[in-house]
Structure formats: structure tokens, C-alpha cells
């Protein structure tokens, strides 16, 4: 998939999510749009994961630790033909199959998340298990920068570094906003990049919406000869792709009204 196709795919997924969120009146659209580009790249360009092999033990696995961005995964799984349209449209609705956060009971979803600070440890366990079994597959785990408030994240990072889980790639969706303020003004996130660099991992910093930067980084990781696990600090924009949502805290909560939906879909044409 080259850049044009990638851009179109990301736009289409954003449109799908906009319509569902608008109808179900669910939250977290801003958090979904900040990590959507990089997750889309992984599923369509990087990972060994498809409708045919998503249950094979040697598949690559994606763990979304910030489970409130679940609809990105659900929408991709529907697009890949693993989930039905009907299931996807039942997101957040009474009697529906898809809860607001991520649920392992859904085909193609690896683990359930929703409480922050859980996914990375599970990803580490999966990567360790594959390493012990000598299975050649990769585990990708995306966490939020706000999620780095959780102590459990640092427990996991120390473990991942010590155990040299080369088959694990951690991505930080650094959208700079968490649930009730800017990350910087809540806890000491100003030093987050330095703290992450201090842990002995292969460290990369990229623009999380830039196709070539994403592509080059995963290419570098593939060609890495050392034993270290990998961490990508992806600078992103909360609400990316819809002008009135970008960098706005309220889009952690709000769902677009009819006129807002219309404008957003127009912008994504």
C-alpha cells in the first residue's frame, strides 16, 4: 500500500468511526483519531495478520492498551472481513455485541483492555511466550502518553528491557492530552521522552501521522541486529483529521451532532 492508498484508507476509517460515534453518542473519538494512522499502517502494511490467519499461533499480534480507542480496531476488523458490518454497527448500543472498550470475545481482538496500564504487561507476556516457544512473530503494543501515568507501565518497561524482548514493539501515542487536561500540566510528562530513553530499548521518535516516517521506522526495526525491544514515541494530534476536533480536550467526550458530522465528512472527502 503506497501513500495515496494509505491516506484514503485512513480517511475511510475516520468516516466510518465518525458515523458510528455520532449515532451511538459514544466518547473518545479524539483518542481514536490520534492513533488511527499508525494502527492502520500496522494492520495493512506491517503485520502478518489477515482474515485467513488471525487465529494462527504465528500471526503478529496487536495489543491496544488504551482500550478506549477500541473502535479503530473494530472498524479495521470489519474492513478486513473478520467482523460483520452488523456487529460493527452495534458498537455501544443497547444489546449490541461491541462494548465501548476492547473485548477479547470479539473475533480478531487479542486481549480485553479498558483499564489503563494493563495491555503492555500482557503484550510482554505474549512476546516472552513466543520467544520461549521460538515462534517467529511480533507483538505490537500501543499505549497512550497519558497512560504513562500508570506505575504498571514502568514495571512492564523495566521487565521488557531486562528480558530483551526483541519481538516486541511498543508505540506511544503521544497526543499530549489526557482525560481532564494537558499531560504536561498533570504529571511530569515534560521529561517523558528522557525517561523512556533512559530505559534500555531501541528508541525512535516520529511524527505519528507521517506515512514515510512510520514506514522508515518499522523498516529500521526490521533490520535491527541487536537484542533490544523497541519503542516508538509517536507525536500525534488528538482528534487528527477533523479541524474542530484537533487538540481539543472536549473531543475526549463529545460525539458529533448532525451538522458537525456533516462538516467532518466534508473535510475528509
Amino acid at each position, binding site marked *: 500500500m503506497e501513500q495515496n492508498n494509505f491516506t484514503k484508507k485512513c480517511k475511510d476509517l475516520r468516516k466510518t468511526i465518525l458515523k458510528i460515534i455520532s449515532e451511538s453518542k459514544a466518547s473518545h473519538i479524539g483518542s481514536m483519531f490520534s492513533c488511527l494512522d499508525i494502527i492502520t499502517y500496522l494492520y495493512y502494511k506491517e503485520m502478518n495478520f489477515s482474515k485467513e490467519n488471525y487465529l494462527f499461533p504465528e500471526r503478529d499480534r496487536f495489543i491496544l492498551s488504551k482500550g478506549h480507542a477500541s473502535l479503530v480496531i473494530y472498524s479495521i476488523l470489519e474492513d478486513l472481513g473478520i467482523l460483520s458490518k452488523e456487529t460493527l454497527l452495534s458498537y455501544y448500543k443497547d444489546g449490541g455485541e461491541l462494548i465501548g472498550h476492547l473485548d477479547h470475545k470479539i473475533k480478531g481482538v487479542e486481549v*480485553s483492555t479498558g483499564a489503563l496500564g494493563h*495491555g503492555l*504487561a500482557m503484550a510482554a507476556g*505474549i512476546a516472552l*511466550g513466543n520467544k520461549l516457544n521460538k515462534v517467529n512473530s511480533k507483538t505490537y503494543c500501543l499505549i497512550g502518553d497519558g497512560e504513562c501515568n500508570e506505575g504498571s507501565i514502568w*514495571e*512492564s518497561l523495566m521487565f521488557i528491557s531486562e528480558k530483551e524482548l526483541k519481538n516486541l514493539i511498543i508505540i506511544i501515542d503521544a497526543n499530549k492530552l489526557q482525560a481532564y487536561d494537558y499531560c504536561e500540566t498533570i504529571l511530569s510528562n515534560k521529561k517523558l521522552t528522557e525517561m523512556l530513553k533512559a530505559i534500555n530499548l531501541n528508541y525512535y521518535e516520529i511524527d505519528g501521522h507521517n506515512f514515510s516516517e512510520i514506514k522508515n521506522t518499522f523498516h529500521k526495526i526490521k533490520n535491527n541486529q541487536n537484542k533490544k525491544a523497541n519503542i516508538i514515541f509517536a507525536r500525534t494530534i488528538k482528534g487528527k483529521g477533523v479541524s474542530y476536533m484537533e487538540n481539543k480536550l472536549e473531543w475526549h467526550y463529545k460525539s458529533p451532532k448532525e451538522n458537525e458530522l456533516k462538516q467532518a465528512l466534508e473535510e475528509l472527502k
Partner: protein
Amino acid sequence: MKTAFIKTLTEEIEKNPNIIVLAGDLGFSVFDEFKEKYPDNFFNMGISEQNMIGVAAGLSLIGKKVFVYSIIPFVTFRCLEQIRNDLCYQDLDVVVVGVGSGVSYGSSGFSHQAIDDIGALKSIPGITILSPSDPLEVKCLVKDSFSYNHPIYLRLGKNSEKIVNKNSLNLKIKEINYIFKGEKIALITYGNIIEEVYEVYLKLLKKGYTPSLISIPTIKPLNLTEIKKIYEKHEKIIVIEEHNRIGGLGESIFPLNEKNVSFFHFAIKDEFIKKVGSSKYLRKMIGLDSLTLFEKINKILEK
């Protein structure tokens, strides 16, 4: 109990190399031989219980049979949400092993004691709670756990507990263990407090009573049919547990008393233990030593 646990695990790992043990920087003298012999099956996870449970969940998803080991409060309260979300909601094959049931870690104080752990875990859907009474029960239940495939909390004492069961004991998860079948009176207990309850049992025999001594090591899920039978077959039910009276076994089985059989509950008051002392000393202080228990029970029976 620790010895019985590690012995049973070592026997099994010879047949099943898929077993992984994660320890929270504890296990000195327990795992020494095991980690030497099976370095790929043992990981010291450091003092990081939340990560330890999450990693256990991940390993289980890859098909490993995982045992997680630490002192009870650290491997339960500290990582309760990981047990709830990662293990129980996803119904994973992980055994959380906690040591130091009740006041086993007496003088270490409240931070290490485990008098409220069952209550904290009991309301999580899908968890199985095992608190065996002696090393033989430990052996049987650990053996049964190898093919159980659901999250288990295994609550152990420490070491050198008295053996009250016969060597031939055959016990499965969810089964009730009649150590002695008697009549009219049922002494019901679990965990290593059985040492005290067994003494009470002997004293009652001397007094001419013939009670049943029943161990219920599976606190969840309860064996409802068998518990109803206990109520049917006895006139007085006496539950003794080294746990807060809120959240323990007594509270679980009391509502099953449909025929209003006399029910007595000896447990720990809903308070932290703030005094210093060995487990023996503290049991006396909280009235769970054999002498105090016998005196109180004898009074009940004489009425």
C-alpha cells in the same frame, strides 16, 4: 504447604515442560532447586506484582500453564484489577499462589497478614478460591489444577503444617473433605487453622461428642449440593475460619441454611490486628486458638 506445593509442581514439570513459574522476588529456599533445574520455566519478576499478573495473562494466551507466587496481600490486593480484568474476565489458565494465610506472618504485622483476601477476591466472577487445610490437600488440589484451565487463587499457609488427612487422600477442586464423619455437630473449616480445629475435635471426642470434622478448601465455587447435605445431616453447624467474618466462608454458606439449623461462626472481628505477636500468640488474642474455641463450643453444646 510451600514444600508440598513445590514438590507437586516439580513432579508435574517433568511431564509438562509448559509450566512457567513467576515469582515476585520471593521464594528463598522454596524455589532454589527448581530454578536451578528449570531455568527456562522460572522467572523472578521483581517487586512488580501488577506487571507479573499481566505477563502471566500474556503467557497463558500463548498456551503456557502459569503459576504466580508471592505473599498473599502483594499478589492479591496490589494487583486486584489485573486479577479481575486480565485473568478472570478473559478466563485464563493462571494459578495465583499466595503464601501466609490468616496470621501465618504474625509478627510481621498487618501488611503481611491475610485476613481479608478471600473477601476481596470472592466477588470477582469466574475466580476459583482454594484454601487447603494441610499439605496433603495442597498436593491433591495442585495436581487437579493442572487440568483445570480457569483462574485460581491458591491460598497457602507457610511450612511444617500438621497433617490431619490420611495419606490416601484423594481430593478434587470443588469437593468437600470429610476428615472425620460424625453426627449432630459439624465443625467446618479451611486453611491451616485446622491445626487448632483438630485439637478442638479431639477434646470434644474426650467429652463424649462425635462431631464431623469437615474441610471445605474450595471456597468458590461452592459445592451447593454437598453443603446442603451437611445442613441436613447435622443439628449444629460450627464454622471456624481465620479470616474476617465479613467476606469469608461462613458468610457464603449461611444463606444455604434453609432448615434453620443452629449456626455458629467463629472468625476474626472486622478490625485490623494491631498487636504484635507470633501466629500462635495472635490466634489466642483473636480467640481462634484451640483452647478458647473448645471452651466456647463446649458451652454452646452444653446449652
